[in-house]
């Protein structure tokens, strides 16, 4: 979580300095979901992600340097800078992509699970998506297919209450995402998405069920995006200040730190050490990306056809 957090704050800083192209959506405040889920996955398992996918990418194992450089559009990025923030792919760790199209990753995850199930290799797929994806086509068809075929896949909804500026309750009469699992005849569980331990426990059970051939699960993680929808959106025009402030108190990193200290599992100094270590790592990634050469225009037509 520290890695995701510091990574993104550094990305934010860099973006604000005006050197980064495109637009970016930060995952800050929602890290417990990616961390808690991906802790159960091996490099051979699959993940599909979203426009807000930096956290998923790091948690699944995309190298920090290459991720930083990718978001910066550098040729040293994991995809040569051709993808950027919303198009990060890494086959070496089963990362099937962040995605500019809302909900598109859902059936893709079902497909990866189908490939794994055909091979019978025990691997699973996890699809992360937002509340905005829930009313979309691809959610419906992707989950129903996985259920009908009993595929090893776990669907993880990051319900942060808004899709851009639109509150979830304005666009559906059923805001209980977990309850929608029933429509597909699979288990659905709603949890506190800012509690990494709860995420870890529930995701572990769902992933174990998937590996055992017992089919998909839908997990709804209640979480929040304290920042704007994208970098540049102050994020305040459409949400009550109190709501934002309240959710900031539930920051997943602070909560875990506090709990761990209270339980005597870790000392404050140790946490500082981790922080500083991550800081160095991120700084190296930043420098790596910054010092990367520019892309070579001659490569623009590479890889159109396989």
């Amino acid at each position: 979580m520290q890695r995701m957090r510091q990574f993104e704050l550094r990305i934010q800083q860099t973006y604000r300095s005006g050197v980064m192209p495109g637009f970016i959506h930060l995952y800050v405040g929602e890290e417990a979901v990616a961390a808690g889920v991906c802790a159960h996955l091996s490099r051979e398992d699959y993940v599909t992600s979203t426009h807000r996918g930096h956290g998923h990418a790091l948690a699944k194992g995309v190298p920090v340097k290459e991720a930083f450089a990718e978001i910066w559009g550098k040729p040293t990025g994991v995809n040569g800078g051709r993808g950027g923030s919303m198009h990060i792919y890494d086959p070496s760790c089963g990362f099937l992509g962040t995605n500019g199209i809302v909900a598109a990753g859902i059936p893709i995850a079902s497909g990866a699970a189908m490939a794994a199930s055909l091979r019978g290799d025990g691997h699973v797929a996890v699809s992360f998506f937002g509340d905005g994806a829930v009313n979309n086509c691809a959610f419906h068809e992707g989950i129903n297919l996985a259920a009908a075929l009993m595929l090893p896949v776990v669907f993880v909804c990051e319900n942060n209450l808004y899709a851009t500026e639109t509150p979830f309750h304005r666009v559906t009469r059923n805001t209980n995402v977990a309850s929608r699992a029933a429509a597909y005849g699979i288990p659905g569980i709603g949890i506190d998405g800012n509690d990494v331990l709860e995420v870890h426990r529930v995701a572990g059970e769902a992933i174990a069920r998937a590996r055992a051939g017992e089919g998909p699960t839908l997990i709804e993680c209640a979480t929040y995006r304290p920042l704007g929808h994208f970098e540049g959106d102050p994020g305040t025009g459409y949400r009550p200040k109190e709501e934002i402030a309240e959710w900031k108190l539930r920051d997943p990193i602070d909560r875990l730190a506090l709990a761990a200290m209270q339980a005597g599992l870790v000392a404050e100094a140790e946490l500082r050490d981790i922080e500083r270590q991550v800081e160095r790592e991120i700084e190296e990634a930043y420098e790596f990306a910054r010092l990367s050469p520019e892309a070579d225009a001659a490569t623009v037509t590479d890889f159109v056809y396989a």
Partner: protein
Amino acid sequence: MPEERNIQYVEASVEALQEEMRRDSSIFYIGQGIGQRGGNFKQSKGLWEEFGDRRVRDMPISELGQVGMGVGAAMAGARPVVDIVFLDMIMEAMGQIVEQAATIHYTSNGKFKVPLVVRAAMGSARCTGPHHSRCFYSWFAHIPGLKVVLPSSAADVKGLMKTAIRDDGPVIFIEHKFFYNKKGPVPTGEYAIPFGVANVCRKGKDVTILAMSLMVWHALEAAERLQKEGISVEVIDPRTIVPFDEQTLLESVRKTGRLLIVDEAQQFCGFSAEAAAVVSSKAFDSLDAPVSRLGALHTPHPFNPVLEAAMLPSVDGIVAEVRRLVAS
């Protein structure tokens, strides 16, 4: 000359919607973020405040559902405007657009009309990348029943939007996101611009350039530079590619004998091919050189700015191609 103001392209579009919605209470507007937020690009600013939730309504991320609702509402006597925001997302709704919206008037033997405007923004703007930059308007033009509008100026966006809303059939109205906050002169009074009338943006005699949307600006800039070299370029903006004003283009090419088509979309099976085929055939004896096409490279949109610039037609590229064409 009528009185004019200098306003943003996006403001001109909002004016059109506002004036039409005041005029006709059967018009409503739906889309993601077009309500209280006023639109991702400010393309609905103030409409929700004026017309309220019933006529200006935020939607879930359900492009297919939105367009389907637009079709049904249009059949039931309303005049819906459906905003897809990024054109790329219209892929999710192609079935409703093609099989329903475009086809029902024909198949019902003219009994039903589907007065639906589908609005979206296309094109690249500062590295919007592979999922937020596509320009596949030729798809719609290939389908009988759809009109396809590509406004390139603030005045055009207003006048064409009015015509789109008043049209009794489905209209695909595609703005360019790069423009939205650019300013241009817009007449003060009420006006509408008819479909199928090309705009000769610049008169010239050596070469004709046919260009759409953002490419019109590039073409005009290139023409300005070429003028200094003594090459006189005529720039034509078709404004709507369906209906397509063949006549204006053919007349120009008969005069200049040379045609360059500049298209932000990929060339293969696109509108640039159609225009080239039509001119090559109908102005066969007037052409002094083969019709030339300058489109995006046949690749997805890369995110990296250097690659993106290499992929898209540029002013430099247009200048070079016109020079070559004139020399040939």
